């Protein structure tokens, strides 16, 4: 079953076509990986889907509802959560308060919102850090904070921008496990990832972008053997 359908989505910044004619579908309950070299338009695609950047044209259907051009808070209210590549924790608030702000979406009662937030913090394995200010947390912990905060709105679709970017090697496996745990809860996940090994491991299907255009869409295996993807990623193989 499709949860998200994107058709011919385009957005240009001045003369630069950041996203051009992008079409793909996300299957409910699956992990969709988005790959591409720097500047391929991955983060722009996220911003278009979540409403942070207005698309020029195209179609975005979430659960068969047109969300093209809606504001970010409207889109998140429909059940689309996200994390940010450049992390955006509420720095002067504690981890618990950060997650509670998300939990208030589904729960008005403060005590219940707190308890829901605590359960999610336990889920991302940071329960001991709950009273630490976000600014005191390490990068890896702040990534978990953002994941917890996004999970707190009980999203049906979660877009995660480079979860494993900028953290040290030891931290990565834990974050990958967390993504799998989230998928196991039935949340559909679209994730941007630079690390090819990780994306092959967690994705059910992969969307490959290069210079704003879709160059491939398919199963990890298909992508792995796709000539265009190999060229975009490694440079033209023949040239080596």
């Amino acid at each position: 079953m499709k949860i998200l359908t994107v058709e011919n989505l385009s957005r240009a910044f001045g003369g630069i076509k950041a996203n051009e004619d992008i079409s793909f579908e996300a299957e409910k309950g699956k992990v969709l990986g988005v790959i591409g070299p720097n500047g391929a338009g991955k983060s722009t695609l996220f911003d278009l889907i979540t409403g942070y950047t207005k698309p020029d044209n195209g179609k975005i259907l979430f659960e068969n509802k047109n969300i093209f051009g809606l504001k970010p808070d409207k889109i998140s209210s429909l059940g689309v959560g996200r994390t940010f590549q450049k992390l955006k924790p509420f720095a002067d608030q504690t981890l618990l308060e950060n997650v509670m702000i998300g939990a208030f979406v589904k729960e008005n009662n403060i005590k219940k919102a707190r308890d829901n937030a605590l359960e999610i913090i336990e889920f991302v394995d940071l329960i001991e850090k709950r009273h630490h200010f976000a600014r005191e947390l390490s990068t890896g912990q702040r990534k978990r904070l953002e994941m917890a905060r996004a999970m707190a709105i009980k999203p049906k679709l979660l877009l995660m921008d480079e979860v494993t970017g900028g953290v040290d090697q030891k931290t990565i496996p834990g974050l990958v496990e967390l993504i799998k745990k989230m998928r196991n809860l039935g949340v559909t996940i679209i994730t941007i990832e630079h690390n090819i090994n990780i994306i092959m491991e967690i994705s059910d299907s992969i969307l490959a972008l290069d210079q704003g255009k879709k160059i491939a869409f398919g199963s990890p295996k298909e992508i792995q053997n796709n000539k265009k993807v190999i060229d975009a990623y490694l440079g033209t193989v023949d040239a080596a």
Partner: protein
Amino acid sequence: MNKLDIAKSEPLWNTNKNIIFIITGLLILLIALPLFGLNSFYLHLFIMIFMHAVMAQSWNVIAGFSGQISLGHGAFFGIGAYASSFFFVQFGVSPWISIFIGMFFSGIIAVLIGIPMLRLSGHYFAIATLLIGISFQVVFQRWELVGAASGLWVPLTQGDSWSSLQFHSSKAPYYYIFLFFLVITFFVVWLLNRSKIGFRLRAVRDDAQAASSLCISVSNYKIIAFVISAMIMAPMGSLFGQYILIIDPDRMFNIEISIIVLLITVLGGIGNIWGPLIGAAILIPISEYSRIYLGGTGGAVDLIFYGLILMIICIFRPEGLISFVPKNILEREKQR
């Protein structure tokens, strides 16, 4: 018990016992103070402190808790003063009711101003509010219905009157009325801080983009904060009108009002609920005493003092005077 259950069994707030004692003690002291026969100068001094603490708290709500720097907040003070006095002078509505009329108008105008202006961010919002503040004064100086430049004169009652909120024999009733509003305001803001709205306002302040990924309509919450802030400010205008019994545009829409609420809050501690009280308790006496000792010749000397103090604070204690209070007394609401 596992860690999750332990966490869930924690109290929601780690309210500090010390602060409860301090506040209760301070409140009893303030209630008892006039009984010791304070002369009218001291009563006036305390009235001004109470009034400015509430006014600064109003500014704290919009600037400290939701991150929008308004430089025209005096407008809501004037609106409160004019709305309540106008209904009293023209229709004989009791000030106790017209205070609410003032709050109502203030709230409505905050919505009307807020919808277009809160789309502006940062400096642009500040500049726009500055101009709004000034333009209100200009409009009221020329508006015949409310007495134009000469303003409204509240008809005097024979002797003291609680129903007309006028007291000629002593300032003590005004003292208690302002104290009452101070307590109510601080209590409401304290509740606001602990509410869902409070959490969401802080989210908007700290990172608007992250907030909107959590279903928070940033523009709506900015307007909510603006309206709450305006409705806190308005009763002070109404009461001040009843206190001096003359409502004129030069006094009620004075640009100084917008500036002083900022100075008090920043001095005391912006974003902290007690900041406005501490700021007012220090700045207002400086202002009143400099007026006494320097008289008419040095009308703006108090502003030089303010400027100096503020510069020192901003350089050495950007969190305001509140940061001098030991952490174990004034702990942040949430435990760490």
